[in-house]
């Protein structure tokens, strides 16, 4: 049998401690809260699985979950193809490469709450550039504080503006790593642009795209700050995504038990979708 050197584990120890304190212990606490009722002062009453049962049959939760899947689905359907198209049209060499890269990276450098505030002002009907243009110049009734459709269009556009760059940069990294020999071979064979994309570029981008889709799924599924600052979940409840609803329950109503149960279901969904997606995308690599 091969002698194994397990000294490497000591180097993992600091990370393990860090994860224990910022993830493991909090999540254990959430599990404990999810089966109890509290009114503060560290006094708890056993509640069993009531919160879970209540939540699983609650229309409010179903609606928020539906909105969350709609939001995540829409931004993935828009951002992934758009990111690939932009990455394909970016120059591979020359002075414009750094210019493009910096321009692409700029939106991602802006803090999330600032993005929300920027878009909020940008879309105000009376003074915002976009809001004024739509309402007063083009005559389109556009007010995201009144109209749910306008609110949805705004949060989707904002997320596309903020995060498509991530897909672009990852795809671009995948594209530039393709050796010239592949393109030369394709040229000799007389391959069309579509064939080059389908059989050379797309397979070579698969790994980075897996990461991009996973990151975009998790980030958009857990999104809170931007829609909260932009619409506050309104008008009505039309843009109340899962995280916004969760914070309303936990901090607004101080219902820590139901909020803990909701967090765990939320976590289970994120975990399952991420696992399924990762497993399906990497399934062929293991062969």
């Amino acid at each position, binding site marked *: 049998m091969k002698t194994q050197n397990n000294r490497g584990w000591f180097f993992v120890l600091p990370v393990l401690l860090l994860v224990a304190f910022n993830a493991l212990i909090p999540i254990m606490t959430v599990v404990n809260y999810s089966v109890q009722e509290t009114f503060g002062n560290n006094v708890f009453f056993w509640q069993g699985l009531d919160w879970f049962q209540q939540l699983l049959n609650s229309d409010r939760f179903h609606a928020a979950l539906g909105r969350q899947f709609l939001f995540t689905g829409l931004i993935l359907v828009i951002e992934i193809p758009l990111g690939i198209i932009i990455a394909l049209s970016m120059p591979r060499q020359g002075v414009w490469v750094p210019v493009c890269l910096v321009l692409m990276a700029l939106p991602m450098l802006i803090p999330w709450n600032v993005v929300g505030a920027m878009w909020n002002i940008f879309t105000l009907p009376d003074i915002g550039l976009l809001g004024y243009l739509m309402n007063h110049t083009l005559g389109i009734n556009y007010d995201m504080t009144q109209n749910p459709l306008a609110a949805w269009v705004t949060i989707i556009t904002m997320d596309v503006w903020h995060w498509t760059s991530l897909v672009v940069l990852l795809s671009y990294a995948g594209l530039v790593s393709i050796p010239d020999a592949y393109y030369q071979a394709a040229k000799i064979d007389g391959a069309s642009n579509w064939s080059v994309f389908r059989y050379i570029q797309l397979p070579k981008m698969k790994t980075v795209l897996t990461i991009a889709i996973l990151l975009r799924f998790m980030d958009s599924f857990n999104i809170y700050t931007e829609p909260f600052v932009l619409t506050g979940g309104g008008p009505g409840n039309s843009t109340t995504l899962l995280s916004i609803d969760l914070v309303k329950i936990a901090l607004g109503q101080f219902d820590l038990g139901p909020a803990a149960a909701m967090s765990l279901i939320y976590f289970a969904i994120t975990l399952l979708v991420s696992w399924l997606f990762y497993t399906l995308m990497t*399934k062929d690599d293991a062969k």
Partner: protein
Amino acid sequence: MLTWMAWTWPTAFVFIGIFSAMAVLTVLEIRHPGGDERRGILGLTTTRGDRLFISLLGSVYIFLAWLGLMGEPLWIPLGLAIAWGVFCFWKV
């Protein structure tokens, strides 16, 4: 010190169970290194750890689905979850 974590015995047992399972896997891994990697009937290449993860995640959904659709008591989903775990370690 642990009052803020609001421990209860049932939730403590859940975590003791999960950590014991991980400890057992660690011992198995030391005895038989390599994770017993194989290609199961779902077409996935899994190690012992993967199979534990799939069993636990699947059990969570079995219980949640039963609780949401049928309500308590949860003896039947407990049986289903155990069967699912056995299936995972046996075939997946």
